């Protein structure tokens, strides 16, 4: 090969680089290792992390059973090692699966259009807000204070440079639901979007209909966020929203210390040209057979450059495929039964503890520990090999006595009994 090129060594190939920019040392990275050594390294480090031991953490990342089918499918090289399906004739597998994904997300959320995925929910939230800005020609955003704190932080980062003032509206100290009186006083003729999460960060289901009525009355769009997708098996879909942005981590995606997950944005038909990210559409091939391809690319950065709806390029396709397989495995009946199990478990533990809020909750709730020391309680649980709930003081100074506890189908009754005993 060197002869064909006409050079005598590999180094000759980079000899044209100016001497001043060449790196002449050896990279300070240890010599290459074998498979066995690499696995051993990660196994040993893994042992110092809590993995599958009992845990009551939720707060945007949920521990659900992952059907074996999911990794079986996504490990197929044809899915794992293919690129974005720009060449439709040799990517019909990926394109068809994304079309099914988009369709199922529409069925779940009650929206008309869903994109092929976003990085995660936290980045989908500002993208949804920017969609609303473009669609309404207005510039400010109202976000409920019981939306996931880290989603709000990311929203703040994006908003700062968009000339998009973000204001928070309160939650009701009694119910834990968004305070619509506060919302009503803050809505103005410049409000592009009202952002509400349901179930909210405290696990409580919100009144989406009323929020929509309030927002629409002032000409704003309603953006509904979700972080626990399993809730959609039994909780009414946010049909009255204009845009839905959410997280599919619950659909067979391992917690993985926080990622990779898969976010989505779905919306009403009228907003289709404002949606960021990739969309797959149905069409025909030259012989008249059904085929799929990426579509409406004129919204995207590779065509529109600085005028694009977003800079997103790589998304979370393989993770979205995990969610697609999960939805296929559980299906109509399974998702409902799974959601009911989650609800039942949370109700079981919920009945044994004092609650901070009164609103109806799905699989998470805020326990009120009163004067007791949350950290001490969690240490007592840790000694029993149980990871306790999330102390809320970190995000809400006024909820110092609050602990957010999550139960899923993987939570065992005996562990809940221990938690009840330690925390009661």
């Amino acid at each position: 090969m060197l002869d064909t090129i006409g050079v005598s060594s590999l180094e000759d190939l980079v000899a044209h680089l100016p001497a001043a920019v060449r790196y002449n040392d050896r990279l300070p990275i240890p010599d290459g290792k074998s498979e066995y050594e690499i696995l051993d390294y990660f196994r040993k480090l893994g042992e110092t992390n809590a993995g599958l031991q009992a845990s009551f953490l939720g707060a945007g990342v949920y521990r659900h059973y992952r059907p074996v089918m999911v990794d079986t499918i996504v490990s197929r090289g044809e899915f794992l090692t293919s690129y974005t399906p720009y060449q439709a004739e040799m990517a019909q597998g990926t394109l068809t699966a994304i079309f099914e994904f988009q369709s199922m997300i529409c069925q779940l959320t009650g929206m008309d259009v869903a994109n092929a995925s976003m990085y995660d929910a936290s980045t989908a939230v500002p993208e949804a807000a920017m969609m609303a800005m473009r669609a309404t020609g207005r510039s400010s955003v109202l976000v409920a204070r019981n939306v996931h704190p880290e989603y709000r932080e990311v929203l703040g980062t994006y908003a700062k440079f968009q000339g998009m003032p973000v204001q928070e509206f309160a939650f009701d100290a009694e119910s834990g639901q968004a305070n619509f009186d506060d919302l009503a006083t803050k809505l103005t003729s410049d409000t592009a979007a009202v952002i509400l999460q349901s179930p909210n960060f405290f696990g409580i289901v919100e009144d989406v209909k009323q929020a929509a009525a309030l927002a629409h009355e002032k000409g704003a769009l309603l953006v509904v966020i979700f972080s626990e997708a399993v809730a959609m098996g039994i909780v009414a879909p946010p049909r009255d929203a204009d845009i839905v942005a959410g997280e599919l981590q619950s659909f067979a995606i391992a917690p993985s210390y926080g990622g990779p997950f898969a976010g989505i944005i779905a919306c009403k038909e009228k907003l289709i040209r404002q949606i960021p990210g990739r969309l797959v559409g149905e069409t025909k091939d030259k012989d008249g057979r059904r085929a799929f391809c990426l579509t409406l690319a004129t919204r995207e950065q590779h065509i529109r450059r600085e005028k694009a709806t977003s800079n997103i390029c790589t998304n979370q396709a393989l993770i979205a495929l995990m969610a697609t397989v999960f939805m296929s495995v559980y299906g109509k009946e399974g998702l409902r039964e799974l959601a009911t199990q989650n609800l039942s478990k949370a109700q079981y533990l919920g009945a044994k503890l004092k609650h901070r809020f009164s609103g109806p909750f799905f699989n998470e709730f805020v326990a009120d520990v009163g004067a007791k020391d949350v950290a001490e309680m969690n240490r007592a649980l840790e000694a029993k090999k149980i990871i306790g709930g999330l102390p809320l003081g970190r995000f809400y100074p006024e909820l110092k006595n609050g602990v957010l506890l999550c139960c899923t189908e993987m939570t065992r009754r005996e562990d809940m009994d221990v938690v009840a005993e330690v925390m009661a």
Partner: protein
Amino acid sequence: MSEGIKKVRQQPSQNEDLLFEISSPGKAGYQLPPLDVPSVDPRAALGAGNTRDAIDDFPEVSEVDVIRHFTRLSTWNYAIDLGLYPLGSCTMKYNPRINEAAARVEGMAWPHPYQPDSLSQGAMEVMAELERCLNAITGMDAVTLQPAAGAHGEFAGILLIRAYLESKGNPRKKILIPDSAHGTNPATAHMAGYQVENIASNSRGMVDTEILMKAVDDDVAALMVTNPNTLGVFEEHIADVAKILHDKGALLYMDGANMNALVGVSRPGDFGVDVMHLNLHKTFSTPHGGGGPGSGPVAVKKILEPFLPAPRLKRVGDKWEWNYNLPDAVGRVRAFYGNFGVLVRALAYIMAHGGDGLKRATLDAVLNANYLRKRLEKHYQIAYNEPSMHECVFSDDIQKKLGADTGNIAKRLIDYGFHPYTVSFPLIVHGALMIEPTETESKRELDLFADALISIAEEIEENVEFVKQSPHSTRTSKVDEVGAARKPVVRWKR
């Protein structure tokens, strides 16, 4: 089929309907253990108005239906596992399976991001070690692993520049971007609140220092440059470019999408780059998965470190902690700590190669690109006659005169059993064929690919219409993309 087609045969592929079409009422593929607590009626617990009935038209299929469905779909895809995937700028190298095994180790796959630091030390160590390796490779001083992909890293990087300039009293107004840049660069600058000013490349396809000198004024925050650029050419005057910017108080951003040409050979930190992103899903072999997930770490020089988003790893005694107390940090760009599972895969790749192995991979990538260039040069017009690094870019000038363009050639390549190169990018080349073979291809596969492109050049001379109607051998013939956009159907409906 033409005699030139060596890699594939036409083979029957199975048809498969959509999941919704193969559903039938009552079928299910799931299993759940019996509830160990009393079952609760959702209407009673949540209120009737808050619950839903069954999800209309949601799939009802068996376990066997599921595996057959997705397996059949998978056979309609091309993949690295099937052969060379020469998408320029995308670095489609082999995805080692050890990476997958490492990411699925229980202690890597199951940690919750909010579990106590004391129960997450292994995960934090993985991140710290990856940060150390990326600093060493780039010659930069500090890294954030938070961004989820390249474009997301660009966004974080430009925010850092803005925060730094703001701390000096003026965030400035403009970002300069060469006309050869990827679309994410201008889209990012816009999202970060900057105006975009395009900079024309010179006759050698590089940033023109004269033009740059004139363009840089007190309104310019930074130049976003890709190096090697999207022509696969190393920016010869990169150190001067950095100096021109720095002299005017502006910074140099580097899009690191093409780091596969530099690892172990040249470090951006040594040629004046202030901030850059890496694509772990390109250079560091994590799989593209049909479009993602990726990871886009951002590496910076000391002056920008205080602005990196919180939280950051901090060593306290012999333990890692997450440090949120960073008063100058730009806001979070993502919840939690980044695409951790992708970070595990990238570190596994770095460990498997070691420092010398990484450099060897770079040189092999450059070797493969130059070999293809040499074999194809007589048949296709090289766009710029400059030394190629890890990719080479041709134009369709010769074939265009005969009536076929880069898009037609790409579709015909499919019949030969190859995924096309990147088509019509960079924009500064008319009818670009952008070819990046990567280091993981053997001479055998490279030759098959070169033979295919040469054979297509000959076909264009003999029967251009046949080439324009391709692909001829795929399950799905040429797809009507224009029709799809005219009246978008983006979901299945009964």
